[in-house]
């Protein structure tokens, strides 16, 4: 709106300006001329107006001017007559050209640039804003109380007054200032304490400690601190380095480091031997200890995860094998007991000598066979291979293997137990492998023979089936009409050839069997043949002579329709030659699937029977029970395994009187609970009370007793603590910020008020001023 008006304004202003500019020219003109001119002009103007008014839209009152304004003067510019306001820019325009008026122009520009200040808001508005801000502030200030309020509301016990004096832990000396040792024992003790300058009043530091603290000079302290700092820095560097090294994943690196360390240690040891034999001995002892530890810890045995994995890999991987051997060697080395030279040494050495040739042998063999392995592994491997060789001749028994094992055991006699254990482990492994190999060999051996035989069997089977088919064929041909028979034959043939359709039929039969079982369970009156739609169809196809019977049966069954029936039965499909049967079968299958799904969903939903059972149980439960008061052993022999005689039992059995008839006796579909005791119900809670969400919750609270009869004294006191405790005769003051740990504002409310005097009443301000002047 404004924007659209603006150009119009400026236009009008322009026209005015022209008039203004023209004015001085027009002034000297004679009145008559002026009049005549103006007359013509006016007419012209009117005409224009009329034309413009025809437009209808732009019906603006245009400036009409008949004579120069009276108010035109050098002091005053008016836009009277035009009906429009004078705009500053209009005045500035003509000034542009003359440079002498630059100052004026500037001043005017300055005036123009200054925006007018908005009107102040009315008082109410201002007050409202003030109020809102103040409210927000106070609300925030108050929210600090929220946690405390919540805590107090939830508190299990509140003790009023809240601002109790907490019993502070004052040292005894402060409490008993005037205390003096009186009894001889006390005096003696205090004498002792004083002699040793032990602290009596202030136990923080003894005088000696204080003196020592004072003794250390500043420089000393500084130096000490420096030393400590350096040590700490070094330690941290070292730690960082160690951590860095620890993080390195390269095994090689670690190996090298370890080796280096070992070498170093050895060197040092040797050096020690020369220099300081006693120290060397100690070192030796250490080594011995390490060995013992190792011996105990089984660390380098083959029991670890790594070792096992390597053992598996060793067969194929040279590196793994080497690693295993290395480990074993290490183990041996570590676990070898340092022998003191004795008589048995010779024998053992002999044994070792005996042993030694085995290893290279084995290695050679393995290298011949599959490559290097550790000795134990190797042996088993070799035996494996040997066995494999042996078993290629299947009729030979595996005795030699056993023999060999025993032999190898004989060889390993002098070995340490660990090694024996190791061996056992290996043997077990090898045995497993052997059995596998056996199977393999057997398979390999038999496959060729079997292949032929199985093929024979297969062919025989096929022939048989074909024969059977043919027989069927013939049998049916006798009975069934030719067209149907052809279909059947085609189908059966396809079945025997591809075996697919048969498999397809299978689940269906199972299904029907299940259905039968279910029906049987239901104990209903359905015949077994009923829910076999497809089969039935086939049946009907196969023996159309039976068809009328089937239809009769169906009629019978239709009288007793039930859910199962509805679900499973299907109108028997009438098949003709023209219709491709496979599609129908597919449809059947889909339907069957659906039925299956439904049945699964409602599996075990035998509602009526459940209800009946429930009712029976309820009736049984509500029946009054007979009371048996027989005591064994009274009047006859008693003991384990002896029962009181039937006569006695009869004698002591008190028969329960027949209760009143059940209310639901004649209502088969209703169970009326007669357990509800009206007399007790008057004392029972009917609706679950508010804070509880489940009746069990409520029952639990009721069932836990709180009395001292059932609880220990302590528990009783805890259970019966009152929620609010007030002390008689104590004034309870309102809660204070200091009570709950908040800092209350240090400034008083009054001082705050006086700090913003603009809101004080006028009189009070005056008063304040007077005060300040005074």
């Amino acid at each position, binding site marked *: 709106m404004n924007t659209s008006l603006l150009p119009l304004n400026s236009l009008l202003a322009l026209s005015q300006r022209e008039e203004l500019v023209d004015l001085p020219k027009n002034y000297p003109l004679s009145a008559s001329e002026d009049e005549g001119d103006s007359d013509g002009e006016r007419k012209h103007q009117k005409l224009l107006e009329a034309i413009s008014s025809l437009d209808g839209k732009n019906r603006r009152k245009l400036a009409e001017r008949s004579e120069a304004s009276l108010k035109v003067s050098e002091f005053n510019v008016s836009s009277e007559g035009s009906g429009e306001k004078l705009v500053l820019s209009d005045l500035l325009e003509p000034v542009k050209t003359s440079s002498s008026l630059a100052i004026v122009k500037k001043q005017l520009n300055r005036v123009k640039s200054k925006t007018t200040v908005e009107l102040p808001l009315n008082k109410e508005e201002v007050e409202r804003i003030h109020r809102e801000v103040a409210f927000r502030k106070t609300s925030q200030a108050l929210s600090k109380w929220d946690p405390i309020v919540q805590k107090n509301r939830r508190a299990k016990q509140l003790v*009023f007054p809240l601002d109790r004096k907490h019993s502070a832990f004052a040292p005894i000396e402060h409490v008993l200032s005037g205390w003096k040792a009186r009894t001889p024992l006390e005096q003696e003790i205090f004498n002792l304490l004083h002699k040793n300058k032990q602290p009596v009043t202030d136990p923080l530091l003894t005088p000696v400690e204080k003196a020592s603290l004072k003794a250390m000079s500043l420089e000393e302290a500084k130096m000490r601190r420096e030393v400590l700092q350096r040590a700490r820095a070094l330690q941290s560097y070292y730690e960082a380095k160690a951590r860095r090294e620890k993080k390195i994943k390269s095994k090689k690196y670690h190996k090298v480091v370890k080796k280096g360390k070992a070498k170093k240690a050895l060197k040092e040891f040797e050096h020690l031997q020369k220099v300081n034999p006693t120290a060397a001995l100690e070192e030796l002892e250490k080594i011995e200890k390490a060995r013992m530890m190792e011996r105990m810890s089984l660390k380098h045995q083959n029991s670890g995860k790594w070792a096992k994995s390597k053992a598996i890999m060793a067969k194929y991987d040279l590196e793994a094998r080497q690693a295993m051997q290395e480990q074993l060697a290490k183990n041996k080395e570590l676990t070898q007991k340092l022998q003191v030279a004795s008589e048995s040494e010779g024998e053992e050495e002999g044994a070792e000598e005996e042993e030694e040739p085995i290893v290279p042998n084995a290695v050679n063999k393995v290298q011949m066979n599959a490559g290097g392995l550790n000795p134990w592994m190797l042996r088993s491997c070799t035996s494996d291979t040997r066995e494999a060789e042996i078993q290629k001749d299947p009729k030979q028994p595996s005795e030699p293997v056993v023999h060999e094992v025993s032999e190898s055991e004989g060889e390993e006699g002098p070995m340490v137990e660990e090694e024996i254990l190791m061996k056992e482990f290996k043997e077990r492994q090898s045995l497993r492998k052997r059995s596998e190999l056996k199977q393999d060999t057997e398979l390999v051996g038999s496959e060729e023979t079997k292949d032929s035989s199985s093929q024979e069997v297969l062919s025989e089977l096929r022939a048989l089936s074909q024969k059977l088919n043919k027989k069927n064929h013939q049998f049916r041909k006798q009975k069934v009409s030719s067209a149907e028979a052809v279909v059947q034959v085609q189908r059966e043939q396809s079945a025997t050839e591809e075996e697919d359709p048969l498999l397809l039929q299978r689940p269906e039969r199972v299904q029907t069997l299940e259905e039968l079982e279910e029906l049987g369970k239901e104990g209903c009156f359905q015949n077994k043949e009923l829910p076999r739609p497809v089969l039935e169809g086939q049946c009907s196809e196969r023996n159309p002579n039976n068809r009328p019977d089937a239809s009769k049966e169906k009629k019978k069954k239709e009288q007793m329709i039930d859910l199962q029936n509805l679900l499973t039965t299907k109108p028997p499909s009438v098949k003709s030659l023209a219709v491709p049967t496979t599609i129908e079968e597919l449809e059947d299958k889909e339907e069957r699937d659906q039925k299956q799904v439904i049945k699964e969903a409602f599996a075990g939903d035998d509602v009526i029977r459940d209800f009946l059972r429930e009712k029976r149980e309820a009736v049984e439960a509500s029946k009054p029970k007979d009371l048996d008061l027989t005591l064994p052993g009274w009047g006859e022999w008693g003991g384990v395994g002896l029962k009181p005689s039937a006569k006695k039992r009869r004698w002591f059995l008190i028969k329960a009187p027949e209760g009143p008839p059940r209310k639901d006796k004649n209502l088969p579909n209703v169970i009326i609970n007669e357990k509800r005791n009206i007399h007790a119900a008057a004392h029972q809670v009917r609706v679950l009370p508010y804070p509880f969400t489940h009746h069990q919750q409520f029952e639990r609270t009721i069932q836990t007793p709180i009395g001292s009869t059932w609880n220990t004294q302590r528990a009783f006191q805890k259970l019966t603590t009152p929620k609010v405790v007030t002390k008689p005769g104590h004034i309870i003051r*309102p809660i204070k910020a200091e009570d709950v740990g908040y800092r209350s504002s240090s400034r008083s409310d009054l001082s705050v008020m006086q700090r913003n005097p603009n809101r004080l009443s006028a009189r009070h301000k005056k008063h304040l001023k007077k005060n300040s002047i005074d």
Partner: protein
Amino acid sequence: MKVKMLSRNPDNYVRETKLDLQRVPRNYDPTLHPFEVPREYIRALNATKLERVFAKPFLASLDGHRDGVSCLAKHPKSLATVLSGACDGEVRIWNLTKRKCIRTIQAHEGFVRGICTRFCGISFFTVGDDKTVKQWKMDGPGYGEEEEPLHTILGKTVYTGIDHHWKEAIFATCGQQVDIWDEQRTNPICSMTWGFDSISSVKFNPIETFLLGSCASDRNIVLYDMRQATPLKKVILDMRTNTICWNPMEAFIFTAANEDYNLYTFDMRALDTPVMVHMDHVSAVLDVDYSPTGKEFVSASFDKSIRIFPVDKSRSREVYHTKRMQHVICVKWTSDCKYVMCGSDEMNIRLWKANASEKLGVLTSREKAAKDYNQKLKEKFHHHPHIKRIARHRHLPKSIYSQIQEQRIMREARRRKEVNRLKHSKPGSVSIVSEKKKHIVAVVK
């Protein structure tokens, strides 16, 4: 010969003093106590019955005023001292232990509208219908001295209420506006208005002491901040609020006693919905006072009864009345949380126990334990119908009883109508307004 004998440690069965209970060794195995719940139920039932039997709350009546008691004040330092102002301009100071008036002052001409004590307990202030605020010494004048106020401020308009700041030498009066006064000056240091109305009462917040609440006769409750010297917010209710009282333990909670028989507990930060509407009175509620623990409050009503409400319940737990007690104008809960005082129209101040069946005096530890146990039992079984019925039973004067019945019928009719309207109108066109929201007309910022 060795004779085998039973021998017991006397510690296990001998009492320390003969006043002790006999020691009874007990087996707490629950299987041995099959009737725990029934036994406790019976104990609870008995406890509840005894509670009703011993419920004798009325302690004393302090008579001496020659006109209706219009205002009461507690002494901040002494539990035994109570001040009361009457409608004839008389102020009396009472000693509760002696149950006697210890001092009488003719303070004003016309009503004593308000009375409050200074936080130190040395002096007290009264305002009256004679447009004056007077400060009095708590102690009486010496021999031969005349009874004179310490200060007298003559105002332009009638002051209808007064309250003293909880920590500083400031007090607030109300009338045409809320004025905050410095005790030393004769002019208010600040006066706050919001509209033009006669404000009936003004109360300082006891925790955040710069906050004030006031209620005016144009049905509104206005909150002020003294520091910023500005009103904060205004809530307009259905009917006029007679007075408000701040919770002494929860800074932002206050309760308003309304003419529409109800009390409204507000959280001052959310004035549009009261936290709780307390309804049980059958006439205008004239005064309310919180217990010092902040868990309950007592209200005085025009229906000649006082009621005690738990803060978080909408129904009262107790109602006190006597035949002779007329319209109760003012009520106070003593600072030790044990007693309730009420001043009524028929010139008496009555002293009640806050807990009707509580035994007064020092309790032995065994009594205390029994009391706690009984209390817990009552709480535990208070949902059971018989116990509930006994615990809830109160005798009421016929007038109150019939009025309650009447109002119940009216409420039921209103509810029915509402339900019917809801049922037979286009869904969504009629909305149910909750009881809490129903009474709030507007909140003005």
